[in-house]
């Protein structure tokens, strides 16, 4: 497949005339492994281009020592030229001040361990905002690497009556320049040709005709960019009319907040109601296949490990996948369309009351589904202290893993009585109050953090309002698939390990070649050992075992209690009766409160450790939430005990 003498890489597609193709020197080796870095300011369409060029052949990783995420992937090219693309964080300059800038700076200079120095650079700029975006061309061109300059959103530029002389700009910069639309895919063939040509034979960049600014300070670079734009007869586009019309509604004093609330409710409602049937389906699928596989295997320890340990343990997490995917679909639509920036703007005033800012809003909303993606979503917050505070309070939001526990306990203890004249039922009101409880704890914790350890002199909100755009199916589906993969991988590996360990502890020590009752297993012993500590909360050792196993993931307690009481997970009625026998009403309320506050989730702890770059925060957070849970449950037990026997 390595025929490089085929000169036109894509027959039937016209090569983009704006991108000069470096000639293949006769007898060149043809295949070289090369790395091309994609650089651009935020909102320039960098990731869209990256996705366009790599498809699903990409992986996400963190650079060593920093919390900046980066993606790399093989370019989809004819003849499988081995070109690796690296998507760098969005930056306006290469001065290594912020973490993002330092990463870009280090990668481009070959100073990033584990990442080879790029052989070429693709610089992507927003053509509708060229004056400001061209500023980045100065430090990039002066690196002296072969560079392709892409002016993205060419369709938008043309539509709004702007124009630029591409040939002149290319001559001035000494680098090939092309107008493209990464979202529509216009001009992408040309980029692929550039990549193939670079892979085949590297061409030394020409010296730029314009003098590069010596001092890389912002005003100087901006003046340089203006001059460059004037030379290339850049005519900026007319203001985005539709964006202004839409903002007149979405940021309207009355309509704006109404739309905002409607959007939040719709997202919230759909991640629960739409995902529920799929999740129920998956749950029973996991159960049925587990039974089926179990029936095919001889009754031995291996079957028990496979079915009771791995299958149901991992299955319990996989069940949450539809909800996570749906959540990312909605966040994708909101982000790609540009509404997210408006939502953050509207939420800012409220968030400011808790010492946070508008950009914390989306992660906290996501945390109602699952804290893991929420913590990953905090990356949009530049202020490190705000970001840490948001990460620390996210697990207090009522995530969906708490629902199986809440459902079981409420169904077992709370009578189905109508309240408020039949508008609400008592179980629904209980559920709602648990949501409120988690939210209040989160908000008060944020206040506490922001006025003590995470105090910052002033929280500045600097929020760019991008023009509204139609989200493309392509970018949405890529994002959903990608995030789903990340979730399954991260949560799945941890959960798998924990499931195996838990299973082992439940089935050991062996006596006469047989597993002991749960009461005499290691888990049971631990449950007995913690019983004195949890007795004041109204819990016995069985609940204690549930609390311990649920350290892995909250919903695991339901399965554990099922095992202890010897009832299948499917027979919820049996489990309810069993729990009711063992737990007083006050103890049930205490258990609910405990689950509302405690950080029982290995995946969350692992993600926080990764994102904060150490064990300090996850340990502090785990201890804080455990203390909160214990004190809260104790108070709940005492208070409820007075009224409800």
């Amino acid at each position, binding site marked *: 497949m390595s025929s490089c003498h085929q000169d036109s890489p894509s027959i039937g597609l016209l090569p983009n005339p704006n991108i000069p193709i470096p000639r293949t020197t006769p007898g060149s080796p043809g295949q070289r492994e090369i790395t091309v870095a994609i650089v651009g300011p935020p909102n320039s369409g960098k990731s869209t281009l990256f996705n366009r060029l790599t498809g699903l052949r990409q992986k996400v990783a963190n650079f060593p020592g920093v919390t900046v995420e980066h993606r790399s992937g093989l370019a989809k090219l004819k003849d499988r030229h081995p070109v690796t693309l690296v998507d760098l964080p969005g930056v306006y300059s290469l001065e290594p*001040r912020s973490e993002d800038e330092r990463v870009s700076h280090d990668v481009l200079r070959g100073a990033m361990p584990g990442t080879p120095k790029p052989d070429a650079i693709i610089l992507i700029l927003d053509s509708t905002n060229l004056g400001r975006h061209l500023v980045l061309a100065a430090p990039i061109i002066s690196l002296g690497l072969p560079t392709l300059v892409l002016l993205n959103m060419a369709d938008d530029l043309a539509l709004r009556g702007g124009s630029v002389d591409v040939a002149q700009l290319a001559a001035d910069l000494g680098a090939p320049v092309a107008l493209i639309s990464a979202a529509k895919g216009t001009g992408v063939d040309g980029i692929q040709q550039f990549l193939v040509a670079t892979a085949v034979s590297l061409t030394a960049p020409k010296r730029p005709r314009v003098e590069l600014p010596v001092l890389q300070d912002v005003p100087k670079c901006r003046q340089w960019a203006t001059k460059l734009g004037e030379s290339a007869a850049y005519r900026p586009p007319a203001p985005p009319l539709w964006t202004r019309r839409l903002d007149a509604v979405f940021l309207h004093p009355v309509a704006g907040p109404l739309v905002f609330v409607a959007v939040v409710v719709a997202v919230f409602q759909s991640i629960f109601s739409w995902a529920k049937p799929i999740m129920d389906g998956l749950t029973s699928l996991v159960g049925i296949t587990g039974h089926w596989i179990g029936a095919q295997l001889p009754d031995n320890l291996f079957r028990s490990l496979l079915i009771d340990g791995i299958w149901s343990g991992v299955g319990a997490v996989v069940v949450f996948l539809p909800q996570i995917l749906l959540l990312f679909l909605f966040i994708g639509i909101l982000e790609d369309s540009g509404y997210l920036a408006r939502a953050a*703007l509207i939420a800012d005033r409220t968030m400011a009351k808790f010492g946070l800012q508008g950009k914390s809003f989306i992660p906290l909303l996501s945390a109602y589904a699952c804290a893991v993606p929420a913590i990953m979503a905090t990356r949009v917050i530049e202020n490190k202290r705000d970001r840490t505070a948001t990460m620390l309070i996210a697990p207090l939001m009522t995530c969906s893993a708490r629902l199986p526990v809440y459902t079981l306990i409420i169904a077992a203890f709370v009578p189905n009585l109508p309240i408020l004249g039949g508008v609400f039922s008592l179980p629904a009101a209980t559920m709602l109050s648990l949501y409120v409880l988690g939210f209040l704890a989160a908000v008060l914790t944020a206040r506490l953090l922001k006025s003590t350890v995470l105090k910052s002199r*002033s929280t500045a909100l*600097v929020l*760019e*309002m991008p023009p509204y755009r139609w989200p493309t199916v392509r970018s949405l589906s890529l994002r959903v698939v990608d995030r789903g993969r990340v979730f399954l991988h991260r949560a799945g590996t941890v959960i798998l390990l924990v499931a195996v360990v838990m299973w082992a502890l439940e089935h050991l020590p062996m006596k006469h070649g047989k597993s002991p009752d749960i009461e005499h297993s290691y888990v049971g012993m631990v449950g007995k050992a913690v019983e004195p500590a949890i007795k004041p909360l109204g819990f016995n050792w069985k609940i204690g075992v549930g609390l311990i196993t649920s350290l892995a993931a909250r919903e695991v307690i339901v399965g554990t209690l099922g095992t202890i009481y010897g009832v299948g997970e499917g027979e919820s009625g049996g489990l309810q009766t069993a729990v009711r026998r063992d737990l007083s009403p006050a103890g049930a309320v205490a258990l609910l409160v405990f689950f509302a506050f405690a950080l029982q989730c290995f995946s969350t702890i692992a993600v926080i450790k990764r994102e904060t770059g150490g064990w300090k925060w996850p340990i502090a957070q785990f201890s804080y939430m455990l203390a909160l849970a214990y004190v809260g449950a104790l108070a709940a037990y005492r208070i409820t005990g007075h009224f409800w026997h």
Partner: protein
Amino acid sequence: MNFKKSLASQVNGGGPVDGRHEARTLADLRMGERGILDRLDLPEDLARRLMELGFLPGHEIIPARRAPGGGPRVFRVDGSEVALRRDTAARLYLRAKSSRSDT
């Protein structure tokens, strides 16, 4: 890191030094009123970030919208729209001359 160090603009001050407290800021602009930025009195990191977004001395800035409920305001600057909180906007000083209303 460098929160204490303030960055007064290098580019010509324009206004009298003692009249600092009288100088108008971005926060004083009415909706749709044009202002020319004179200097940024902000910690260096933040000032730099704002300059990269177009808040440069000599550039024209127009407040375009207010967040519903009186939160941050959206400013039109250098071909894009950027939202800032009031306390940040109040640290961006305007040139005295061009603070005339233009509607």
